[in-house]
């Protein structure tokens, strides 16, 4: 009796909600989006608050997809995203009269990590592809011990997941047929991947450079067999020698105004870009 009623109400509310336009916020900024960038947004908000204590900057994570959906439904002012908007999303934006403005605010390298006791220290993109698609099943095939490989991936709402799939599994072809191995474990967060890799000698996983810690071993990656193995460091991502790196975006609805403009200026300022570096991403200015 109750559940169908709830369901009806839910659907009705969602339909009506689609027509709701964003309320004009004055002294508050809503930032929503990528879990990779949420710590960066938090650090900006914390520092911005020291300069402009009267402005309330609320930071929320949830994933790039969540942030873009929020921008499109008018429930956030700034969307942090670790991927560009898809044509499907742009179409929705157009239909709702929202003009997403894209800025690249930082660069990110995706680190491939294994347990510190794992003897493997470098791999080619092809080897990574073989492992994450499930074709290479044992560490001995890539120069490690004779133990099975446990694949850790992020869940599908994650921008990191999509980027890794497109640039490693599909070698840059966005709509390629390749998929992660069905045996890959889908982890809810980058920190969950870090924790599992720390404790599991069989595991291999990937996360944004910001998560690199001595408790996991970072793999040096080569574009192909004839290229040098490169570690995900700020210098290497900037020099574009590390093969798995990506831009990090900020979207606003149209040209940012008022306090949102001030916040964006701060993000691109010397101090804002220093924060980018401190949260282990690569500054763009």
């Amino acid at each position, binding site marked *: 009796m*109750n559940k169908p009623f*709830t369901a009806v*109400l839910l659907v009705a509310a969602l339909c009506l909600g689609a027509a709701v336009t964003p309320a004009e916020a004055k002294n508050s900024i809503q930032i929503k989006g990528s*879990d990779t960038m949420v*710590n960066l947004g938090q650090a900006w908000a*914390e520092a911005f608050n020291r300069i402009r204590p009267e402005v309330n900057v609320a*930071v*929320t994570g949830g994933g790039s997809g969540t942030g873009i959906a929020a921008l499109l439904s008018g429930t956030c002012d700034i969307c942090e995203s670790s991927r560009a908007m898809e044509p499907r999303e742009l179409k929705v934006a157009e239909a709702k009269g929202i003009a997403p403005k894209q800025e690249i605010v930082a660069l990110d390298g995706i680190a491939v990590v294994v347990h510190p006791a794992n003897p493997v220290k470098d791999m080619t993109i092809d080897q990574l592809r073989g492992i994450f698609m499930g074709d290479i099943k044992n560490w001995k095939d890539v120069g490690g011990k004779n133990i099975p490989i446990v694949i850790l991936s992020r869940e599908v709402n994650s921008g990191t997941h999509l980027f890794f799939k497109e640039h490693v599994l599909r070698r840059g072809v966005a709509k390629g047929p390749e998929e992660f191995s069905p045996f890959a474990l889908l982890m809810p967060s980058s920190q*969950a991947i*870090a924790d599992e890799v720390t404790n599991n000698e069989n595991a291999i996983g990937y996360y944004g450079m910001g998560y690199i810690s001595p408790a996991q071993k970072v793999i040096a990656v080569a574009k192909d067999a004839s290229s040098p193995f490169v570690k995900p460091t700020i210098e290497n991502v900037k020099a574009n020698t590390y093969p798995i790196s990506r831009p990090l975006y900020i979207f606003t609805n149209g040209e940012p105004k008022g306090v949102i403009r001030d916040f964006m200026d701060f993000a691109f300022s010397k101090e804002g870009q220093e924060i980018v570096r401190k949260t282990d991403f690569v500054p763009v200015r």
Partner: protein
Amino acid sequence: MTNLTVNLKEKIGFGALFLATMAVVVPVLCIIWLIVTRGWSAISWEFLFTMPRDGMRAGGIFPAIVGTFYLVLGSVAFSLPVGVMAAIYLNEYAKDNFLTRMINLAIINLSGVSSVVYGLFGLSLFVVFFRFGVSIISGSLTLGIMTLPVIITTTREALRAVPKPFREVSFSLGTTRWQTIRHAVLPFALPGILTGAILSIGRAAGETAPILFTVAAFYLPNLPNSPFDQAMALPYHLYIISTQIPNIRLDYRYGTALVLVGFVLIMNISAIVVRSKFRKKRW
């Protein structure tokens, strides 16, 4: 000889029952022990009463504590009056007909709905439809609706436990139904009602899913200053510092868990105290 085997059988039987009881108690004790030993070192004045710093790796969890306090206050302010009134109606006024049975069914269903469904419900109703936005008021109302069945059920049990003669004597003095409820029933049901309210506070304080979409913020530099602001909250804060913040000190996670568990434990213990105190004064 037969006596001996009967005795033995009984001993084995009681042993099994005792083991089953222990199986309930041991995990609780283990959890508390684990959280206290690992989290105690984080607890300090600064941890409890300052804002987070350095990417939430230092400083305190004050905004999360304040947020949880507001949410609990808001949810009880909504669910206690509504729940108690509904329970009084159902127990004292309603006839046992089809509608009443359907309402009962709805309440049972409500208490079985998983908390994430309440979160989505709150998102679509309060956040989007009523345009409250992601705010304390949306979160409070969502939590309030989630705790309604607890309050209704405990209040009804409390009303039902008041002996029938109390009402009959009151009616025989020529009082109205409401006068009877007000003076001859409610005072004696109060401890039960309070228990329900306090248990629902514990539930509201500890839930993550209903606040996920309706109120919780990853980070806020200032405390909320209106019901339409977002807030941080303890369970969600614990979730994000465990999943999103790299290289955070372990005792910060466990310290946050300790504050949350401590909050709920204090609530539950005060429920027991209130109950036993009022019970002594009973008829």
